């Protein structure tokens, strides 16, 4: 059987790739994908905890996270499209309407 530590390492790696992607990439879509990666990293750890603790709560939370992430994707993409119609860019550094 695969030990718990391996799953947790995988989950941490996926989560950290998400964090670094969010902080270093400047394209909105890729930043958004990085957030999804972070959520999936958390999902892996929750499911492995749930399996090793023999407790269902973790898996229930994962279902909720997946559902909310879908809603979040819908709203996020809608906002990106609304923005893209007014300004044809998906680059965060070009969003400088407001400063100070």
């Amino acid at each position, binding site marked *: 059987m695969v030990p718990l530590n391996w799953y*947790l390492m995988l*989950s941490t790696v996926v*989560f950290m790739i*998400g964090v670094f992607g*969010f902080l270093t990439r400047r394209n*909105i879509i890729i*930043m*958004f994908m990085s*957030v999804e990666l*972070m*959520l999936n*990293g*958390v999902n892996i*750890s*929750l499911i492995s*905890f749930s399996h090793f*603790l023999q*407790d269902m*709560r*973790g898996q*229930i*939370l994962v279902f*909720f*996270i997946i559902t*909310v992430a879908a*809603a*979040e994707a819908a*709203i*996020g993409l*809608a*906002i*990106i499209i*609304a*923005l893209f119609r*007014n*300004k044809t860019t998906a680059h965060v550094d070009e*969003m400088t*309407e*407001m400063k*100070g």
Partner: protein
Amino acid sequence: MMPFVMPDLRPVMPEVVMTCLALIVLMADLVIKRKETIAFLSIICIAIVTYVLSGSLGTTFNGMFISDGYSMFFKLIFILNVILTVLISVKYIAVEKVNFGEYYSLILFSTLGMMIMASAGDLIVLYLGLELMALSTYILAGFIRYDIKSNEAAMKYFLLGAFASAFLLCGTSMIYGLTGTTDLKAISDYIVKNGLASNPVLMLSVILFAVAFSFKIAAVPFHMWAPDAYEGAPTSITAFMSVGPKAAGFAVLGRVFMVAFGSIKIEWATVLIPVAVLTMGVGNIVAISQTNIKRMLAYSSIAHAGYMLLGIIAGTNDGMASVLNYMLIYAFMNIGAFAVVIMLRSEGFKGDNITDYEGLSKTHPLAAALMLVFMFSLTGIPPTAGFMGKFYVFMSAINAGYTWVVIIAVIFSAISAYFYLRIVMYMYMKEPKETVHLTTSPGIGLALAITVIAVLIIGVLPSTFINFAHVAVIGF
């Protein structure tokens, strides 16, 4: 096979009723063409929810959902927030040419999320409430679709909000792995029973929770979204999200830290003290250099989050009561100030620069006088409510032994007088450059009357409200 037991629905009844009524408001938009009617309908909905709320004390769903005095007090703040926001929005969204009916149902859904957060006794419920609130607010922030500033505000708010909720989930997952549960009471019991006080994983998850909640209450160093989101969003929504999500953030911060992490108070206080000091410092000092009033009020709301954090840091029932009291006062004075800002917006005139207020007392003496009261209250000058709010928060922090933090807070509070009173100086001591037309309506008049009367009454007779807050936190 476990038998299905119907849970006691009485404590969740306000939320159930709110869900149904928000959906009805959404549907009513299809048949009702006059949007003022929908605004009126949503106020009726809130009245019904308030009525249901009065008989909803109790705990249900195996402790996942708690309706106690604490959540009740926060729900009253949310209800107040919706009523005032709807009153100031009716005319404003018509001026901004975004007079759509779904605006009101989104406000109701966002408030529903806040109510669920205030009552959450379990991290799963907390997450769901938080997302419902946040997702509705993202849409509202970008509600002026044709305006690039509004789009950009929504984008920044959305990206950083999603990033923060990923941290919340990471903290939840660690707590779950450590204690095997997500129930706040059970987490606390497990920590005490197994002596986990100095466990590094526990500390890491406390920090992750602090990060996620700091995003919601706009505390430094996680405040970067706030000025942009506040400036770009429709002003009525700026008023809404400077009170609602912040109050909800404090509700969960209080409940998670006081209940689940109640046994490691010293540890999380050392995490929150630097956050509070930085929040007060950055909020007050950066506000000085602002030229846009919405941006200035954004930094001011960051600074107020810092003051309120002192009550949480105190870690006593007294401290929590002072936070509740402060939040109520803050709701009145902040929405009042934004209502004046909204009045200055008219067709073809933005009216959100600080220089637009020059000589307002000559052209519109009443509006200037109202702004004067709100600015005094935000500064914390007696006899306005802002003074009383600060007084109780600082006193509870001193009683808990954090005198030096309070000294810093008072110094920053004195600095804040500069940028609040600058508005007063512009209004009363400068000559008007151009005639500013006020956009008035019965709704905004009513909202201003409610807020100004509340600010003055709480300022003169604070004991009723602080006693009410003390009663609310009993048994918390």
